[in-house]
């Protein structure tokens, strides 16, 4: 377990380093600098600005400066909005995105587990077929399209929900639903497959022949084992909700971090792009790391089997 922890931690740190380096050099590979504008700036001002942002130093020095800043969680200033730092932007936008993301996470986990277990326990019956049919629709519906459909149908035409903006619970329902649809469908399918697999195991036969009631078997024996793959999906799930939020926040006009990310791309505001990318990567990698740990804690076979491979 301890071995496993350090191995995973090593991979996490290495990946972070790779992402940071990659983003840094990609950003600096772009021709021109952030101050290239249509209107020519006097040479002295340009130099002063470059000096101010440290762009006159050699690339490798800038790299180490940036890395030093990163260690202190300082992501630098925004090039587009004077006097604002990337940290401020993240501090402002992230709570909104987090709130929306957690709501979507909650919806997808609860509905996904509900539908998945329903269809697995009624395998082959109409409940199973209809849920799986809906699930494959959910799987083929990108969140940004579902968001526009929901906005048009439920908010504009039927007037059931507010069309856009952020602040009240009603306003968060449609964006959260559109973010949650795809993961819900995925979880339902995943859980169904793994539950059916568990249902065919010998120990379920044993439990049945012992005379345990079906609902007890389902809860105590099937469910617990079948939830393992769902736990391992939590990492990609977070990724899907996070990246989905870029478009969904744009559609619903939500002032979250995803909106900022998109805005910084259109503005070509490089420090903000880089800062937010790094921030997202860190969140995702830490989620995956925690899920891995959780997973190996629930299922000790994982960490012991990797140890076996290594030795």
């Amino acid at each position, binding site marked *: 377990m301890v071995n496993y922890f350090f191995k995973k931690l090593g991979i996490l740190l290495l*990946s972070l380093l790779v992402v940071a380096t990659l983003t840094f050099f*990609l950003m600096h*590979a772009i021709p021109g600098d952030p101050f290239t504008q249509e209107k020519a700036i006097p040479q002295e001002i340009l130099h002063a600005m470059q000096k101010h942002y440290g762009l006159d130093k050699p690339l490798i020095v800038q790299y180490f400066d940036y890395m030093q800043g990163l260690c202190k969680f300082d992501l630098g200033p925004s090039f587009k909005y004077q006097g604002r730092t990337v940290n401020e932007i993240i501090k402002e936008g992230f709570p909104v995105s987090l709130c929306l993301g957690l709501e979507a996470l909650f919806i997808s986990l609860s509905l996904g587990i509900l539908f998945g277990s329903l269809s697995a326990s009624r395998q082959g019956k109409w409940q199973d077929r209809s849920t799986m049919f809906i699930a*494959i629709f959910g799987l083929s519906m*990108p969140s940004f*399209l579902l968001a526009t459909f929901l906005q048009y149908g439920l908010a504009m035409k039927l007037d059931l929900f507010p069309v856009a903006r952020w602040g009240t619970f009603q306003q968060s329902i449609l964006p959260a639903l559109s973010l949650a649809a795809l993961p819900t469908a995925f979880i339902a399918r995943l859980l169904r497959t793994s539950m059916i697999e568990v249902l065919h195991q010998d120990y379920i036969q044993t439990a049945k022949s012992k005379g345990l009631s079906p609902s007890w078997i389902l809860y105590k024996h099937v469910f617990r084992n079948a939830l393992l793959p769902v736990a391992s999906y939590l990492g990609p799930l977070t990724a899907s909700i996070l*990246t989905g939020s870029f478009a969904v926040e744009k559609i619903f006009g939500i002032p979250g971090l995803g909106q900022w990310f998109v805005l910084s791309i*259109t503005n070509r505001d490089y420090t903000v*792009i880089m800062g937010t990318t790094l921030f997202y990567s860190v969140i995702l990698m830490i989620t995956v790391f925690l899920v891995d740990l959780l997973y190996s804690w629930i299922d000790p076979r994982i960490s012991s089997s990797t140890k076996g491979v290594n030795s």
Partner: protein
Amino acid sequence: MSYLDSISTPLKERFTHPLPSYSEKAPSFWKEGWKRFCQNKIALIALSFLIFFIIMSIVGPWMNSYTYYETHLPLKNMAPCKKFWFGTDELGRDLFTRIWWGARISLFVGIAASFIDLIIGVLYGSMAALLGGKIEEFMMRIADILYSIPYLLVVILLMVVIGSGISTILIALTFTGWIGMARIIRGQILQISQLDFVKAARALGAGKIRILISHLIPNCMGSILVTVTLTIPTAIFAEAFLSFLGLGVQAPIASWGTMANEGLSALCYYPWRLFFPAGFICITMLCFNLVGDGLRDAFDPRIHS
């Protein structure tokens, strides 16, 4: 009569047809799988839809007299009618023609990206499995690290840096897209190498490369096919998503994602401008998913074992 028939037919066949050769005796894996696939009605319907889309993407743009870039400013934002089958956009361009042009781009990006993934993935995965030991460990570690980087972020970064265009989308999508395939191939090869027929081939003195090419990879074909089919909708989705964020192909060419993005601003008044491209994205992804599911049921050996 019937008795005579029953014994004479095989006899007749024996004389009229040459003896079945060795390879024809066992029912082929592909034929069996295809037969199982054909029993899945929904997957077959989805497949025919996809074939229809591919044909339409070739002939669709020529089915009326408009081009994807020609503007008719007095006729902008027309609803679907006899003249413009899917209506027109804010510059009066015919949406029907643009949709099928977009289909070319979306389908091309989807299929090309998953084939590049396939080639890199198979090479990398089989190399890793073949070399084994420390090198394999190292190669899979690199894949792990690349895999843990959220791929849409990398794609967006690359798009910002290299600039938008179809080739950039392909580079960006395949930058980390091959890893899934590489992992599957490596796992399959490790599993199959333990089987008796590979041991037999090894005992007969076949080299590593020969075993790989003539024994291991052909036996991975089932899972390769399934993975490729299921990668295509992911790639189509990614392209649409990027275009939707404004990072896609350049005007006047438009993919479905670009058109959906343009249609979003007119959602209140001209909803069809969003609904046609959006609907085509959804139906195409749905069909690929259904076909992929059907192929998995038909070809994945794990289900039958």
